[in-house]
């Protein structure tokens, strides 16, 4: 708890501001004048006395200790007063000499019958029981049990006790004796002398045994001291208990008519003694009773102050104890009740400021208590925190100020009365809350009206010297600190506004301005224009009174703007002042300003006028709402480089009278354009008011002014964005004073984004305006534009024969024709795969200009900037580009032609680069489908081939191309595991295939040995060389390599082949020889039989069993004799191998013919023709 006399200072609470705001405010509060005054503020009449606000503790005096010269005594005293933490008993100790005179006890009243109290509570009473009248007096005396001169010492000690007793005559104060001994005492009972002498000493001093203590001066001093003080504490408690009983005992003598004051007094005393006894529950109970009693007192104008003072004291005690008992709601309820009861008890109307001061103090003290409780762990909430109480305290302080202003406006000639009616003989009042000139008077009518008048006059004159603003600001800043803590930013802002206004009243305009300026943006950003206007009006007054040019101009600008809710006459006045200021003259004073301050200000303004120097003020408008609005709009989002860039600046003034500006400049991200976009009129300052409605430089209120600017973009800026970075509007002349309103980007201020949003939402139809005018809301800011290249005037054609065939050199013919009026130069062609497609396409696409040789991997996918030369008007050129596509699929190809041309824009010659691009999607397909299959010599499909046995490879080429293809040649490149049986020569050389046609060829092959590989053996490659039939001679031939499929090669145990003629003739012998080869390393047992056939007779072995040695061959010879003509089945040969049951006749049928064509028997004459057939 801080001493109540010293209020929290703004510095301490506002130091918590963070960041930039802290820096700003810090400088604000470090201004020395008020700081010093506040810290040194002495307790005023309204502050609670220290003894009320402290925590009452039992008062114990220690005598007989020489703490200055005696080291032992010093150590004892230190042990008592050092380290008094919460775990030590609550005692306040004081060292006094043994012969100290305690306050005299007045003789006890035996009857209250004729006693009439003069007031409720004496001003000295609390202090008396806290600091003057002890509960216990302890007499320290150095005496050991084995003291040789015991008798003498004993009587000296008794004398000392007696002196103390004399001084305390009539009081219940306890006395105790502590013997300081050098020796450690023996355990009780063992030291016979000790107990004897102790008893003797007690007798001599008339002490009970409980009040005699021994303090051995040994190592464990602190331990002994703690035991001692616990014993003291018990004595003290007994003392306060008896005091409570004593006060209570008075009650029965009291009557309600004359002793009403005593009821309160006694109840208060009981409660206070209970507090001293540390019985806070009973203290609280008794204070509550006392509080109710105080309100039962008959109140009148003469004693209302005393009642309120006492009610305030008791209320303070109750709230304090409630917080201490952790029942904050009780405290709040009590406080509310207190305020409700006392709010209307104003008392004398002539001193109504006193009531306000008292109310303010009540709230402040409660706020302090609340805050203290929070520091000790209580949690407060947003809607119930100390801030509200400080705020209310500030409110009453303001009320006090107003009352004081109204009541204490005495003429300067009125002298302070003499003798001072506020002086008392003692320098202080006898009773709390009484008037000094009629202390102890109980009559409700002032006995001496003259005295009363003088007294009131004295109080009023004293009130005049109170610096109210200081009190108000201190309270407000306390409240600000609290609301900041409890998430009330708006409340905080509001209080800061009040602080600012209070500083304004206190004539501290610098601080006022800083505070107001700090919170302005909060109100602006939330769009509370009424509040903003009110703050701005005060701020404008401050800046006027300090002759702060820039602030004055800024606030004027905003007060004239659309966010201001001022009436037009006010706005006119401000505008007139603003124009005056810009013309280097002094403005008229703001209304309602202090006359003296205005005088000072006028002098300051006059000095400003004569002072030369920098008088250009740049104001960034994005943070406020000035009276000129600005919007910039490029005509289109992009401009071709060969046309001038055009944009409009729209300006609108919201002030009541037309205003003239002297300069408008637009800045761009490329500063080279700035010079083209400046509007300036050489006008003298004196002309500002003349010629108002004419000319571009004059803004008529409510009318939108459109200013057109154009410039030629630089060719380097093609493809870049041109952005307006700021628009600067100069008001006033640069030679005198001027203010530069600077809009960032394309205009707009603190309020315009919200307005634009509302305008966009609105579907109100706007009234029709004349052609050259526009609605402000309908203008949409367009602060940047793109510069794009000039429109090309050439044609680009592509000629080609799609689709492209895989791997061919696909020809793309590009024709460029110029339609320009002048020669075009530096024509460049970029052609190839359009970037940004699948990366694999880039790998598999190659572009070249040379079609005579095949391009490989090293060629790029895109040829860039191929110089083509110049083109005269109408001329055309052709360029062939060859593309090789390695994979099928569709590709996008880009052909991009760029050129230079000279042209003029706005009489300015520029060289433009124009470009035109064409894209084409080309599909790539396979030129032909190749099907490869393996067949037996009988052209039967083979799943697998047998080692050493010939088979056929068939290749079918089916043309898939829509264009005719010429197969130049084909080639079979065999793998080592396969051998050709005869010459491998191509059968398809120079064959032309139309769409859908196919070509086939076959090769006879054989595999020497069976492969062991799982997947079969590789057979090799088939290479086809081809080109488009339409392609020219020099176009290279394309070789398409086809990898032949793998084939599974198996061993066969027995190979049978038959030697027979190609046909037979009826009734002519047909010799057939079967060769049986053993392909194994084993001797084979073979059973052979031949089934008869209807079409043949035959000779030869019909059924035989034989052996064939490994690697050898057995021949079987038969003579068939055909009987019927036609395609006849041969007598079927069946072979079974005993070792290989898998070798079936079915397998056999693959190798040997099963039928033969038999010709009919011809005539001999036809032999020649038969031979030909």
């Amino acid at each position, binding site marked *: 708890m801080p001493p109540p006399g010293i209020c929290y200072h703004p510095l301490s609470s506002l130091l918590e501001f963070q960041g930039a705001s802290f820096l700003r405010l810090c400088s604000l509060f470090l201004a020395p004048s008020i700081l010093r005054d506040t810290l040194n503020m002495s307790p005023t009449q309204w502050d609670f006395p220290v003894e009320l606000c402290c925590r009452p503790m039992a008062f114990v005096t220690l005598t007989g200790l020489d703490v200055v010269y005696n080291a032992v005594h010093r150590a004892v005293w230190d042990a008592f007063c050092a380290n008094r933490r919460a775990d030590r008993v609550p005692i306040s100790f004081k060292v006094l000499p043994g012969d100290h005179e305690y306050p005299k006890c007045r003789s006890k009243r035996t009857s209250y019958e004729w006693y009439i109290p003069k007031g409720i509570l004496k001003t000295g009473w609390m202090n008396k029981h806290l600091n003057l009248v002890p509960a216990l007096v302890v007499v320290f005396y150095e005496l050991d049990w084995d003291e040789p001169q015991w008798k003498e010492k004993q009587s000296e000690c008794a004398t000392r006790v007696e002196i103390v007793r004399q001084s305390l005559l009539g009081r219940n104060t306890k006395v105790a004796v502590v013997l300081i001994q050098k020796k450690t005492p023996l355990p009780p009972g063992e030291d016979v002398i000790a107990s004897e002498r102790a008893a003797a000493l007690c007798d001599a001093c008339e002490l009970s045994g409980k009040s005699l203590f021994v303090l051995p001066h040994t190592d464990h001093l602190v331990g002994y001291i703690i035991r001692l003080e616990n014993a003291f504490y018990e004595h003290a408690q007994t003392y306060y208990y008896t005091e409570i009983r004593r006060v209570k005992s008075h009650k029965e003598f009291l009557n309600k008519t004359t002793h009403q004051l005593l009821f309160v007094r006694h109840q208060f005393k009981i409660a206070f003694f209970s507090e001293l006894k540390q019985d806070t529950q009973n203290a609280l109970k008794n204070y509550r009773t006392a509080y109710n009693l105080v309100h039962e007192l008959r109140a009148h104008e003469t004693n209302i102050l005393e009642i309120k003072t006492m009610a305030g004291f008791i209320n303070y005690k109750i709230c304090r104890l409630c917080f201490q008992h952790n029942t904050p709601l009780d405290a709040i309820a009590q406080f509310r009740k207190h305020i409700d009861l006392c709010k209307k008890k104003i008392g004398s109307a002539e001193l109504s400021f006193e009531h306000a001061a008292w109310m303010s103090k009540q709230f402040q003290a409660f706020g302090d208590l609340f805050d203290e409780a929070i520091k000790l762990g209580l949690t407060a909430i947003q809607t119930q925190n100390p801030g509200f109480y400080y705020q209310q305290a500030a409110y009453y302080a303001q009320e006090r100020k107003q009352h004081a202003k109204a009541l204490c406006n005495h003429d300067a000639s009125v002298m302070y009365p003499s003798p001072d009616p506020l002086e008392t003989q003692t320098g202080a009042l006898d009773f709390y809350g009484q008037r000094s000139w009629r202390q102890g008077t109980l009559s409700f009518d002032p006995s001496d009206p003259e005295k009363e008048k003088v007294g009131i006059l004295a109080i009023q004159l004293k009130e005049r010297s109170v610096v109210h603003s200081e009190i108000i600001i201190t309270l407000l800043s306390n409240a600000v600190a609290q609301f900041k803590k409890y998430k009330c930013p708006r409340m905080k802002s509001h209080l800061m506004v009040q602080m600012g206004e209070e500083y304004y009243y206190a004539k501290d305009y610098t601080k006022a301005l800083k505070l107001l300026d700090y919170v302005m943006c909060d109100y602006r950003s*939330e*769009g509370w224009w009424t509040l903003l206007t009110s703050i701005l009006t005060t701020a404008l007054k401050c800046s006027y009174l300090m002759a702060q040019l820039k602030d004055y101009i800024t606030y004027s600008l905003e007060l004239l703007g659309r966010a201001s809710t001022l009436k037009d006459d006010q706005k006119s006045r401000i505008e007139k002042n603003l124009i005056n200021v810009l013309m280097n003259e002094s403005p008229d004073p703001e209304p309602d300003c202090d006359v003296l301050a205005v005088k000072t200000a006028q002098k300051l303004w006059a000095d400003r006028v004569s002072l030369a120097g920098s008088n250009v003020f740049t104001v960034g408008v994005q943070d406020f709402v000035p009276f000129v609005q600005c919007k910039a709009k490029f005509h289109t989002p992009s401009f071709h480089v060969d046309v001038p860039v055009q944009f409009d600046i729209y300006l609108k003034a919201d002030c009541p009278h037309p205003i003239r500006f002297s300069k408008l400049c637009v800045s761009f991200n490329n500063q080279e354009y700035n010079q083209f976009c400046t509007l300036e009129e050489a006008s003298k300052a004196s002309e500002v008011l003349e010629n108002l409605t004419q000319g571009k430089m004059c803004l008529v209120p409510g009318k939108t002014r459109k200013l057109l600017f154009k410039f030629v973009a630089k060719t380097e800026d093609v493809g870049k964005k041109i952005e307006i970075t700021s628009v600067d509007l100069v008001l006033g002349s640069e030679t005198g004073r001027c203010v530069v309103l600077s809009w960032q980007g394309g205009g707009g201020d603190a309020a315009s984004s919200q307005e634009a949003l*509302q305008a966009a939402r*609105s*579907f*109100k139809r706007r009234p029709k305006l004349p052609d050259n005018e526009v609605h402000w809301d309908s203008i949409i800011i367009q602060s940047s534009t793109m510069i794009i290249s000039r429109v090309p005037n050439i044609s680009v054609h592509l000629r080609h024969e799609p689709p492209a065939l895989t791997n061919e050199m696909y020809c793309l013919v590009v024709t460029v024709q110029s339609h320009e009026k002048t020669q075009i130069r530096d024509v460049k062609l970029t052609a190839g795969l359009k970037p940004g497609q699948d990366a694999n396409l880039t790998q598999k696409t190659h572009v070249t200009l040379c079609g005579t040789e095949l391009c490989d991997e090293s060629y790029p996918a895109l040829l860039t900037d191929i110089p083509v030369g110049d083109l005269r008007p109408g001329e055309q050129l052709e360029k062939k580009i060859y593309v090789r596509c390695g994979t099928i699929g569709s590709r996008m190809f880009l052909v991009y032609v760029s050129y230079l041309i000279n042209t003029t824009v706005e009489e300015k010659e520029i060289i433009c680069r124009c470009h035109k691009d064409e894209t084409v999607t080309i599909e790539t397909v396979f030129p032909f489908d190749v099907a490869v299959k393996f067949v037996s010599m009988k052209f039967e499909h083979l799943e697998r081939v047998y080692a050493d046995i010939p088979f056929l490879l068939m290749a079918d080429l089916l043309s898939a191309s829509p264009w005719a293809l010429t197969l130049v040649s084909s080639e079979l490149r065999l793998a080592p595991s396969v051998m050709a049986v005869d010459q491998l020569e191509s059968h398809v050389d120079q064959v032309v295939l139309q769409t859908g046609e196919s070509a086939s060829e076959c090769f006879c092959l054989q595999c020497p040995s069976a492969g062991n590989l799982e997947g079969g053996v590789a057979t090799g490659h088939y290479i086809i060389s081809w080109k488009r039939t339409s392609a020219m001679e020099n176009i290279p031939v394309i070789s398409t390599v086809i990898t032949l499929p793998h084939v599974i090669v198996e061993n066969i145990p027995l190979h049978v082949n038959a030697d027979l003629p190609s046909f037979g003739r009826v009734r002519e012998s047909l010799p057939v020889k079967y060769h049986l080869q053993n392909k194994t390393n084993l001797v084979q047992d073979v059973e052979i039989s031949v089934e008869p056939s209807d079409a043949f007779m035959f000779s030869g072995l019909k059924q035989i069993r034989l052996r064939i040695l490994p690697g050898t061959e057995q021949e079987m010879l038969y003579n068939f004799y055909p009987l019927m003509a036609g395609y006849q089945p041969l007598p079927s040969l069946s072979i079974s191998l005993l070792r290989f049951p898998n070798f079936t006749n079915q397998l056999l049928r693959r190798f040997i013919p099963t039928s033969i064509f038999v010709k009919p028997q011809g005539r001999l004459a036809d032999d020649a023709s038969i031979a030909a057939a």
Partner: protein
Amino acid sequence: MAVCVAVIAKENYPLYIRSTPMENELKFHYMVHTSLDVVDEKISAMGKALVDQRELYLGLLYPTEDYKVYGYVTNSKVKFVMVVDSSNTALRDNEIRSMFRKLHNSYTDVMCNPFYNPGDRIQSRAFDNMVTSMMIQVC
């Protein structure tokens, strides 16, 4: 009987604010503005509650010595703030609630007007009359 009635937009700027002409208008403006601190806090506290279970009436925002400030928030976060004289003990919670409901209905009517652009200041005679009735009527 209310001494001040205000309608505050979602963005916390005033759409409508009317106070008894006898007293300092600015004082009520500040009072309504500062009460938004509590409204904001209450709204953020109930942010988690389901939309249909949400109570629109916010109750007493904060008491001052002389006035009581009540709040109400619509589902579109438009706030109604009403300032009532502290001495007027006849006004119970229920009466305040019904006054807010009336205000809400009237506000809905304003919104239904196709010529009213949401977010503009309310300049409706019907709404004005309703507020007037609220400010003089003694419940």
